C-alpha cells in the first residue's frame, strides 16, 4: 500500500523529496520534505484512489538534534492507515522558532493536534488560526516533552516540589538503591578487569 502512495505522490507533485521506509518490525512510514507538506497532504486527502479523509493524530517527537513530526491518516473507505513524517533540525540559539506549515485548513482535527504539539514541544505552526497552549496553563514556561526540559521550581509563586510534601523515606530508598547499583557495577567492572589481567 505504501509504495502505491509514494508512486502517486511522485507522479502528481514535481521535485518532491519523498522516502519510503518499510522496517521489518512495526509500521512503515513515508518521509517527506517540509516544503511539500501541504501539497502532499492535500493530495492524500483529495485523491480518489487514496482518500485519506481523516487525520487521527499528530505526534511530535524530540530526537535530540532534530524534531520529528508524524501525521497519522486513516482512510475509512479502504480501511488503512498511513504515517507521514517530516524531520526538522532544532533552530540554533538566537534563531527564530521552528516553523511548520499548518494543515488545519485541510483537516479540522489538525487544529487541536497542532496546538498540543506546540504546547508540548514548542513547534510553531505557520498560519494556524489560534495557536495557544492547550494542556498546560497559558502562562506556563517551557515545553514538557523536550528532552532537555527542566520543570521550573516555582509557578506563580507556588513551589512545585515542596520539600514537606515529598516522601523523604522514598527518596532516600531510591538513592540507596542507586548507590547499591553503582557499587555492584563498579565491583563487576573491577572483577572483569582483574580477570583480564590474569
Amino acid at each position: 500500500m505504501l509504495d502505491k502512495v509514494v508512486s502517486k505522490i511522485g507522479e502528481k507533485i514535481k521535485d518532491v523529496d519523498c522516502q519510503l521506509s518499510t522496517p521489518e518490525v512495526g509500521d512503515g512510514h513515508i518521509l517527506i520534505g517540509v516544503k511539500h507538506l501541504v501539497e502532499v497532504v492535500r493530495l492524500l486527502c483529495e485523491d480518489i484512489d487514496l482518500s485519506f479523509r481523516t487525520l487521527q493524530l499528530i505526534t511530535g517527537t524530540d530526537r535530540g538534534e532534530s524534531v520529528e513530526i508524524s501525521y497519522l491518516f486513516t482512510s475509512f473507505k479502504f480501511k488503512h492507515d498511513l504515517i507521514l513524517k517530516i524531520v526538522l533540525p532544532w533552530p540554533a540559539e538566537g534563531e527564530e522558532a521552528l516553523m511548520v506549515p499548518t494543515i488545519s485548513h485541510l483537516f479540522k482535527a489538525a487544529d487541536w493536534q497542532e496546538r498540543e504539539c506546540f504546547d508540548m514541544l514548542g513547534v510553531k505552526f505557520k498560519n494556524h488560526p489560534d495557536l495557544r497552549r492547550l494542556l498546560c496553563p497559558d502562562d506556563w514556561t517551557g515545553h514538557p516533552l523536550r528532552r532537555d526540559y527542566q520543570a521550573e521550581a516555582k509557578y506563580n509563586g507556588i513551589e512545585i516540589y515542596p520539600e514537606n510534601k515529598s516522601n523523604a523515606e522514598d527518596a532516600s530508598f531510591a538513592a540507596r538503591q542507586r548507590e547499591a547499583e553503582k557499587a555492584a557495577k563498579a565491583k563487576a567492572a573491577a572483577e572483569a578487569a582483574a580477570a583480564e589481567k590474569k
Partner: protein
Amino acid sequence: MNYSVKSVEQDESIKSEKLIVNMGPQHPATHGVLRLEIETDSEIVTKAIPHIGYLHRCMEKHCESMDFRGVIPFVDRLDYLASMNMEHGYVLAVEQMLGLEIPRRAEYIRVMVAELQRIASHLVAFGTYGIDLGAFTPFLYAFQQRENILSIFESISGGRLLYNYIWIGGVWHDLKSSDLEMISNFVAEFEEQWQRYDTLLTQNKIFKERTAHVGIIPQALCHEYGATGPVLRGSGISHDLRKDKPYSIYSELEFNIPVGEGSVGSVGDCWDRYYVRMVEMRESIKIIKQCLDGIEDGEVMAKVSKVIKPPAGEIYVKTEAPKGEIGYHLISDGKKNPYRLKVKSPCFTHVSMVPELAPGMMIADLVALIGSLDIVLGEVDR
C-alpha cells in the same frame, strides 16, 4: 386602568447583550473538570470555547522514564472508567513490536474482561446521561449492575477501578472457576435489567423530547474531525474496529454493530448516540456468552523475557474502547523504556468538536450534547 403591555421592541430600555458564562470546571454536566467558556445571547449559545488541561499529568512524559511493564498502570488512569480497554490497546502495541504469540486462554479472558468493562462504562454513560437531563433514578439502577461487574474485577485482579490486570504476554492471573460462575450469573440476569433501563429512559417522553433532533452531528463532520466509537456510529456510519480490523479473537465471534437510524429524531442526534450505547451493551453480552462457551484450558501467560526491549521502530495500534478508538503510537529505540508514547484519545477528538456544534443551541441542549458524547477528562488531558 391601562393593562396593555408594551411590546419588547417598543421598550428601548430593554436590550439584549452577549453574556459570557463559565460552565465548569466544577460542573456536574461536564463529567469531570472541563471548563466551557460560553457566550450566550439570552438562552442561545453563540460561541463555546472548551478549556481543557485541568487533569493534565503529562503521562506521556512519565512513560518515557518507565519500563514497558511500568507503563501499564499509567494507561489505566487514562480512561479510568474503562481501564481494561486502555490496557488492552497498549499491551497489544508492545506485543506486536515483540512479535509475541499469546496463549488462547489469555485471549479469551482479555476479550471477556474488555467486554465486561465496556458494559460498565456504558452503564455509567447511561446513568449520568439521565442525571444530566434531570432523571436521577436510572443512575442508581445502572450503578447497581456496575457494582456487580466491579465485584467480578475485584475478584480477578484485586482492584475495583484500576486493575493492572492485562500484562504483556497474557494476563496476570488465571480466572478461577468461581470467577467464571460470577460472570455467567451476571450475563444471565443482565437482559432483564436491560429491559428495565430501557423502560426507564429510552422511551420516556421527556427524555425523547430532550434528546431527539438535538445535537445532530453530520457524517462529513465526523470524518473531518476523526470522530470514532458510538459518536461515529450514532451518525449512521457502521465502523467498528472489532469488525473492520479485528484484533485478538474478535474475528471468531459473532455480534452486530448497531448504528443510529434516526428512529425517534434524525440520524446523528443525541438519542441515536445514546441508543447505540444501549444496544452495544447487549452485543457485549452476546460476546461474553460465546467466550464463556468457547474458553479453552491452558496457560494464561506467554514466555516473556525479564527485561522487555522491543526492537527499534514504531507502531500505531488502535483498538475499540467504549468511548471510541484508542490509539497508541509507540516509538521505540531498542532500549528498555519507550522513546515516545503518544495516545490518540477519542474523547479529545469529541471535545474538539464542541465549538463547531454548540453555536445556535440552547444552554440546556448543550448539556444534552456533552452528555451524549460521553467524555472522560482523564483521557482528554492525559
